[in-house]
């Protein structure tokens, strides 16, 4: 069988061995470490701007500062007072933009922008994810202030970064995303800060969105 063609790359060099998922060059590494960092670049990322009380805002449902999964398995994060970032399975970007545009009708001012290639997304998972992030970010990550499904934008390792707490089977997990050009630096900064906790790079799998 011929090697699948690579048509998209992350700004982060994939850890050996390389693999291809839906045209994306990803890492095929499988780590069993207690603290892992995954480059989730292939996931679809849609930036939506709309009025919170409009048709689109009501459909999206999650308020600013919170995340929720809609019935289609799309993670909807309230990333600003009238702004949402949607995360869907790889390749779902066009359909997601279409779904938002269909809902917006003609009277509502809505923008839906596919920023899949424009932002770098990574997932940090493990019991030590919180102490690691606390080294780089001043926001209180304790459960009282930042429980599961909390969303905020702040400075992480001096990069303007969106953080989504999205625990997986009770294990603390954070989706972290920033402008594409800072992605490689932020990935390195997280690995550097995680060295004392035994962090390892894990590969991307096509089931990354499952159970979100």
């Amino acid at each position: 069988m011929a090697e699948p063609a690579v048509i998209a790359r992350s700004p982060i060099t994939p850890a050996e061995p390389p693999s291809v998922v839906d045209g994306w060059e990803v890492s095929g590494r499988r780590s069993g470490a207690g603290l892992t960092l995954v480059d989730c670049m292939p996931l679809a990322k849609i930036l939506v701007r709309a009025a919170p009380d409009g048709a689109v805002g009501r459909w999206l449902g999650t308020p600013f500062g919170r995340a929720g999964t809609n019935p289609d398995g799309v993670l909807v994060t309230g990333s600003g007072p009238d702004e949402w970032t949607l995360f869907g399975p790889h390749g779902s970007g066009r359909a997601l933009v279409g779904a938002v545009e269909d809902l917006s009708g003609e009277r509502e001012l809505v923008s839906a922008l596919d920023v899949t290639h424009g932002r770098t997304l990574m997932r940090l998972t493990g019991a030590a994810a919180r102490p690691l992030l606390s080294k780089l970010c001043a926001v209180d990550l304790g459960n009282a202030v930042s429980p599961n499904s909390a969303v905020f934008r702040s400075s992480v390792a001096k990069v303007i970064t969106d953080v989504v707490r999205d625990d997986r089977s009770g294990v603390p997990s954070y989706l972290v995303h920033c402008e594409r050009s800072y992605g490689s630096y932020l990935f390195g900064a997280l690995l550097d800060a995680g060295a004392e906790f035994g962090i390892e790079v894990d590969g991307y799998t096509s089931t990354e969105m499952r159970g979100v």
Partner: protein
Amino acid sequence: MILIPCPHCGERNVSEFQYVGEALTRPNPDGVDPEQWRSYLYLRSNPAGPTVESWFHRAGCRRYLKVERDTVTNEVTSVTLPGRGGPQP
């Protein structure tokens, strides 16, 4: 370190914000004379004490905020979202 309590994001380090400047009332462009317009564009009172100014939450909600701050003590006494009327960012 100055902490600014953003109405959207909560208390954040000042390094997340961008200082915009003194909040001024924009004169109505219809009927304003050049002297008033120049004063609006270029002149600032720069007080030693309480002042109302605009800050931009660059690394947070990306909103302009109206901040009341004492320029001597750096104490921030109030942060609100700019509304209609009064000095505007």
